[in-house]
């Protein structure tokens, strides 16, 4: 217990390090905002062409495509973060040559993993909140304030699932050094089968069956129910109950795979190679 607390106390050091590194590239904050704005403008115009009747209703109310997509994009950012940023952080450590320097300190590999994304865990939710607020104000989105708490609960249950996938991807990168192909495939597959951009009903029936088994699609739908349909905490509870074991399994798989990957690299002497 004391050891776990000691490890948790190290996380602010990672946050500070990554904030300072990110701050040294100030322009990237600006370009990120520009990209986000550009994306929303594109979806606004796409939304003008889409008949809201083809979209599902939430809490008995029709939603616009922009509202539908905005929630999907907000969740999609977490997905991208989990799959891309977690492994990218590990790859970055390898490329900078700092991975061995970190792993030679008395720090658990799981702390190194969590630490390398700790800044993103603070930054991405803030960025998402800013994004949703900006879109709401600029385009008059009808998001439910009461749905914020249930949405957050779903998000908290969902995040470890994505993080577990990201850690497993990082383990693959550590082992095979270049795993961009896997990552791209994973992102396309999960994006397609998660309902981020379009309703799953539009997919062929055999793909819909697969998509319905995808925990991400359940998380996104629960978020839409909360933010667009004013769903209560009680009504999103079945999704939360479904997500928790998935998250635990994903996290266990990811951390186990990462531990094995580090052990293998230690045996082969290729920990710092990329």
């Amino acid at each position: 217990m004391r050891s776990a607390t000691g490890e948790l106390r190290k996380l602010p050091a990672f946050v500070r390090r990554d904030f300072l590194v990110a701050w040294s590239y100030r322009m990237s904050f600006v370009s990120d905002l520009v990209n986000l704005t550009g994306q929303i403008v594109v979806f606004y115009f796409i939304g003008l062409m889409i008949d809201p009747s083809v979209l599902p209703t939430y809490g008995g109310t029709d939603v616009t495509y922009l509202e539908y997509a905005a929630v999907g994009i907000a969740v999609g950012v977490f997905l991208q973060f989990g799959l891309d940023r977690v492994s990218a952080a590990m790859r970055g450590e390898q490329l900078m040559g700092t991975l061995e320097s970190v792993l030679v300190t008395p720090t658990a590999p799981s702390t190194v993993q969590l630490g390398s994304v700790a800044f993103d865990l603070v930054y991405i939710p803030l960025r998402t909140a800013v994004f949703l607020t900006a879109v709401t104000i600029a385009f008059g989105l009808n998001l439910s304030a009461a749905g914020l708490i249930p949405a957050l609960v779903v998000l908290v249950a969902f995040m470890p699932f994505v993080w577990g996938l990201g850690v497993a991807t990082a383990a693959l990168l550590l082992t095979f050094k270049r795993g961009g192909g896997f990552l791209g495939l994973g992102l396309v597959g999960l994006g397609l089968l998660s309902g981020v951009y379009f309703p799953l009903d539009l997919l062929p029936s055999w793909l819909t069956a697969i998509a319905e088994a995808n925990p991400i699609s359940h998380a996104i739908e629960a978020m839409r129910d909360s933010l667009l349909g004013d769903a209560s905490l009680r009504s999103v509870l079945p999704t939360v109950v479904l997500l928790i074991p998935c998250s635990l399994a994903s996290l266990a798989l990811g951390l186990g795979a990462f531990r094995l990957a580090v052990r293998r690299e230690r045996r082969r002497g290729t920990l710092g190679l990329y």
Partner: protein
Amino acid sequence: MAAVTAPEVEVARARPSALRTLPAIEADTISQQFDAKQALDSVSLAVAPGSVQALLGPNGAGKTTLLRILSGLLVPTSGSVRILGRKADSSRAFRSLIGLVPSGDRSFYLRISGVENLMFFARLHGATKREAKQRATELLEEVGLADAAKTRVGFYSHGMQKRLSVARALLASPPVLLVDEATHDLDPEGAHRVRDLVTSAAERGAAVVWATQRLDEIRGLADGVTLIAQGRQVFAGSVPELMAQAVPRRYLLHLRTRGSIDEALLGDVGTIERSGDGASHYLLVLREEAMLGDALAALRASGVDVLTCTEERSGIEQAFLSLAGAR
């Protein structure tokens, strides 16, 4: 009158003898295989607390591989490592015993300052933010980087990064310090400072392994030497013992002669030829089994005065080349 320069022997700085009893580092018959390449073959090492063990060898001898094994970054194919009696593994308790100065340049976050880098690593050793800042500041002062504390490491010179690396290894005052080519490419002042820091750590009781390919570094620094070549341990002992392995064969002579010297003058004893450093400077190369005294006597008998006689290479260098299998 011949003035033969004796090989320079310096005794390593005296350190508390009471600390030198049980080894802090024990590596027993370490072997490491990388696919078809045998990187290390049954290398053993024992280093007492408060002493510096030089790990000497040419490029590719296996020094870095051995240090990586001692630090727990690499699991050996066979053999065992114990640090303060604890078997090497990937546990946090084991890693808390080690301070590592890696050989490469890339081991810091280049976009952040030296003090921030040290603070980060100090916190990974369990220091609080305040302790980390205090320790980082102290060490930057010690390694002479106080003025550059707030400069991004990306702007540091190679030597400054090396000193920062030593500072990082000392953050938790570890009982074992593993130093890989720390003064390679450093200017004399920078190298001197790094050696002083490491010597001070040993004086405070740390067991130090100092890997180098530079022979001049180990004089006055190392208490013991392990020489490895092509992954095999070819010598283990003290610096004077290493030098005793040297069989000097080449000497630079300063002669006073009335005419030119016949190159065949020495017959079976060896050869003598102008060294190019001046009309009176010659290079004497002894044949196997020949004695220096015989060569000097033969010169004297031909009316040549030997003013000075100096080994062309130092004793350590002779031993290194002889043991490592090079000329």
